[in-house]
């Protein structure tokens, strides 16, 4: 039996605050945050991420955010592109619909974590997934929670997976 193909899986990490969080967080939150992290999974030469518009894909680094601030190697996977897309569409119908987006509970990092585990069995670094709880544990975060809850992030530049293009 021939060895199965292994495809590398990468995690693209973007700082949405572009460095502001690192500077201002001690003052505002009382603790140091290195960044406000947005992540996406890159596999099969495509970048996949979750936003308020559902699961999207684009060429790696193809969102308006530009190139990632850091890249984490998650591992490798045997999952082929075909199976992966099937999986993504089923996710997009069930767990990761656009309406399900929530900045704290169910955001892009949740998605990246889920996909990373599917692809490689490994989770993404904890500093990313711990960010919401970090913020909410500060009084400032608590105070701003209602406002922050309503924030919906959708990096422009991707194509939606799992629903008709251009249709709402």
């Amino acid at each position: 039996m021939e060895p199965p193909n292994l495809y590398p899986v990468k995690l693209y990490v973007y700082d949405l605050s572009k460095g502001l969080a690192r500077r201002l967080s001690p003052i505002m939150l009382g603790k140091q945050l290195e960044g406000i992290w947005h992540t996406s999974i890159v596999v099969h030469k495509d970048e996949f991420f979750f936003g308020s518009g559902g699961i999207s894909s684009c060429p790696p680094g193809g969102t308006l955010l530009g190139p990632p601030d850091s890249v984490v190697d998650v591992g490798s996977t045997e999952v082929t592109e075909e199976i992966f897309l099937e999986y993504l569409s089923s996710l997009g119908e069930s767990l990761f619909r656009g309406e399900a987006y929530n900045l704290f509970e169910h955001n892009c990092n949740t998605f990246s974590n889920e996909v990373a585990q599917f692809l490689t069995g490994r989770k993404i670094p904890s500093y990313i997934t711990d960010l919401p709880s970090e913020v909410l544990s500060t009084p400032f975060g608590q105070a701003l929670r209602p406002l922050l809850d309503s924030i919906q992030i959708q990096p422009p530049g991707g194509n939606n997976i799992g629903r008709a293009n251009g249709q709402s």
Partner: protein
Amino acid sequence: MPHVTARTLRMAPSGCPMNLLSDKNISSNVTRVTVKTSGKQQDFMVADDTLVRQFKEKLSAHFKCEMDQLVLVFMGRLLRDHDTLSQRGILDGHTIYLVIKSKHGPQSVTHSFRKLPCDEPDKRDGTIKGNSIGLHQPASMSQTPLEPPFFVKPEMSKVNIQNLEVDSPGHMAQMLDNPSIQQLLSNMNLMRQFISELPEMQQLMQQNPEVSQILDNSEILWQTLELARNLAVIQEIMQIQQPSQSLEHSQNPQLHLGLETIPSEDNVLSQSHAGFSDQIPNNLHDIFGNNLSKVLLPGKVPEHVQSPPSSPPSQEQRDPLPQLPTTRVIYTSSCGLSSANTTPSRMNHTAKVNAATASTKDRSHKCAIQQPVEVPALPSMITQQEQTESKDDISLSDSDQRLEDDLQLLDEQTNSQITRNVMQLLMSDPCLAAHMMLFMSMPQLSEQWRQHMSTFLQQTQLSDLLVTLANPKALQAILQIEQGLQLLATETPVLLPWVAPYLWGLGWLPGPSCNFSDMAPWSWDVPDMIDPKGPEFCHKSEAVLQMLHSEDSAHSLQAPEIRFSRQMESLQAMGFGNHHANLQALIATEGDTSAALWKLKRSQGF
């Protein structure tokens, strides 16, 4: 702490009760694995040495899908059938990911926007294959994008729509019989979205803005959907109506017509419905069906489809499609439609009578609608009576050529077999082509179109009589007269002997002078529906022709030669020796000598 339940496959060799097994599972043969799929997860108890294949069997039974649809992923590795779970390192408490492939597989990322959400594996109720449901024009649609929310609906279960090309009406009918499809079709909003989103439809809409108006009118759409739902019945009707003529392909076009040109046919529907009360459209359809089916598919008209009840759509949607090709398709589709809408109880003239009596408003419209009833019968009469029949055939073939050119254009647009079949139909039967042209001159179409039609007819050198018929007022007058007589016949049967001569003329009663045996193809056999009071349809065309002439000249039933004899003499005296041309000119100008003079001069190049 994992609890081993009755789902274990094997007892521990020591014979201990299950709940004494340790957490480490070293001595245990069973593991509890979590299977995660499409946002859900479920625990399964399996033995360590279970083959992946066996596990897949279990899963396929549980998730109700085929085994080869299952893909198991653990730690990023695909699980092969011949491995055992323990070989892959699957231990207690581990999570295995399950992907259930759809039968057709997903699209690539770049085409994901066209992906059928129903292809997704989590809809384990059954895969939904893409469909050329028939509510759009191209017969070769293989993929149709559909809104995801629709398939999230719980009541949609086990819809199997084939992802294939519509190539046989039987197949379509079979598909339409599926009650799920019926349900689908009955969902107005969905179908509207569905139709709007088809790229072909969008293309069509760009070319014909009226189409989008159709889609916006929910009533028309609803009628369309009703029709589509009943298409299976229509097909039966078509099959029964198969005449001895070589219309073996009419079955296809009829069904395809209904299926594939519904959007364009709706224009005709909307036009015909404009301003009518609820009753009238039913009657109109009957009338259409009566006569058109008589024309197209002679023979007994059997049971029918219940004509779609309709309410008048908004008036502004009556703009006709100015393009000739599309209108042709409209006609052919409305043929299919109206044939299907006949009701056996109205197969004969009681229908007309009912129509006359039932209609209380918009009589002029009614007259207009009834015109094509008589009109299509005329050309057959004319072409048989005319000495220049060969000329008509030639001219008709010219027009057919033009039709064919236009239809080829349409063909490219719609990619369907309909026009080809229709063209063959037309070629084989020039009378039919003439009928079509007259049908086109229905006054429901706008003034613009009518003028276009008159010009067109003249250009193709069809009989001048036909050109005359394009005159809406003339047609209206004919219908009014006939209406009045019908009314008399039904309301006051005692007057029947008095009006009988006129009715003979109209063909409502079997007259003594019915000697047009070659009109047989166009006459009905309605053996079981002879209403003693009402008229029996017989040789109407001859009578209407006479009516036309009588309308011109003080109700005398005379041939134009006799009628215009005076004018003819004048023309000849002036030096126009071509007897036939004179006659033609006089007919066209209805006896106006000076106008005929101008006409002759023009045609002779002065």
